């Protein structure tokens, strides 16, 4: 079996501890920035998917299917290596001035997650009775205004638990950003491993952090389901 001397001190204090904490910080930063952008993009795509104008609807459908059925890693590589071919030059130059790896990871994670969020929002909208849209339209709201004031505020409330789940997935998926050199948690764990050969300790620490985040977020969803959603549905 394992013939290995564990040395936990190496990751609980000092330089390597700082590396891991920096990794946690980057992971959180990457996830939070991406989830906000992904939510906005997902909202737009969801509304486009329900539009009455068929080209818009088809575009949204194609976008959803293509992003959901391609691996995130490939999308990360596409934006990281290929962005200078597909994005306008001034955007690329702007991205390079702050942090290109981080930006590419944000773009890929945002696009990938937005597709899943759009589907969640769409099923949330579906759970709102059809008559509400008809009533709103007949009292003079346009499609977009009816969405904005009547349907979406209710749908988003129902969609919050799956949205938080997507945030959880996003946090886990952000580990893929290490492949393009974003110094997030998994990257730092790998880094500690290659400097110290203490792979088990480093990966245990990273695993515990990911698990901790997952458990906390899962607990929040539970509370929300019991406290908030029960009152929304109870009315």
């Amino acid at each position, binding site marked *: 079996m394992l013939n*290995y001397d564990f040395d936990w001190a190496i990751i609980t204090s000092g330089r390597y501890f700082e590396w891991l904490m920096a990794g946690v910080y980057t992971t959180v930063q990457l996830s939070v920035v991406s989830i906000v952008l992904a939510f906005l993009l997902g909202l737009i795509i969801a509304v486009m998917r329900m539009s009455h104008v068929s080209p818009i609807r088809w575009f949204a459908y194609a976008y959803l299917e293509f992003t959901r059925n*391609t691996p995130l890693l*490939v999308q990360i590589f596409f934006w990281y*290596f290929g962005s200078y071919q597909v994005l306008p030059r001034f955007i690329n130059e702007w991205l390079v001035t702050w942090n290109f790896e981080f930006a590419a990871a944000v773009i890929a994670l945002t696009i990938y997650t937005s597709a899943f969020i759009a589907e969640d929002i769409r099923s949330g909208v579906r759970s709102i009775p059809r008559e509400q849209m008809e009533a709103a339209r007949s009292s003079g709201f346009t499609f977009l205004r009816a969405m904005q004031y009547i349907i979406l505020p209710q749908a988003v409330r129902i969609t919050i638990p799956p949205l938080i789940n997507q945030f959880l997935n996003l946090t886990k998926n952000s580990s893929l950003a290490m492949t393009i050199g974003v110094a997030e948690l998994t990257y730092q764990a790998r880094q500690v491993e290659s400097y110290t050969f203490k792979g088990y300790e480093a990966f245990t620490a990273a695993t515990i952090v990911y698990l901790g985040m*997952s458990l906390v977020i899962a607990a929040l969803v539970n509370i929300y389901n019991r406290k908030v959603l029960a009152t929304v549905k109870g009315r």
Partner: protein
Amino acid sequence: MDLSFDFSVISKNITYFMIGSYPHGRLGGVALTLYLAVASCILSFLGGLFLGMLSVSKFRVIRYSATAVINAVRGIPLLMVIFWMYFLLPALMGRTMPESRTVIAALTIFTSAYMAEIVRAGIEGIPRGQTEAAISTGLHPWQAMFYIVLPQGLRNMVPSFVNQFVSLIKDTSLAFIVGVSELTHVATQINNRTMIYPAEIFFFIAVIYFIICYAFTSLSRWLEKRLAWQKAI
């Protein structure tokens, strides 16, 4: 923006994309991606069935520990599981392992946890009265599970299993990290060699993944519709 795409890099390397350097060397590319996905799918189906049945066991200790394992695996990124296998398997086995086997082990463990949740939901979707009726006609609880509950439950699970297989195909791209020459790895190799066609190369493999995954996504939707139709009559 430099929108002058040159897709000749694809046609020049098409066999390498599809089968790697086989038959002169190792199998790679799309073929290896499919091999990894199918092998891990079969193994994780069995693992998921086993874990899923444990998680509905009537013994509290078994049920709780199975649920704990499932939730722990679902709580960490696949990349973590791959690294764990990469470091742990050789130490446990006492010898080096081929990377493709490391990846299959990691994908199996990871996907089993998700499959187990599908199995649990499928079993719980069968009314409890059926098990009780089966037991009262003299079947052993295990027989009730294997002859009454699972055959019906599994049929309901098929669409979810197909969806999970789609995730698995996408997840095989992570094998790139430990140097298994599946499609994504092959693409990065070609990209490193040619240097100036990254958008073409990664768009092309995205399309390949899309064609494979979309076929299975559509299959799953069709199955779901047929299942709903069968239930209606």
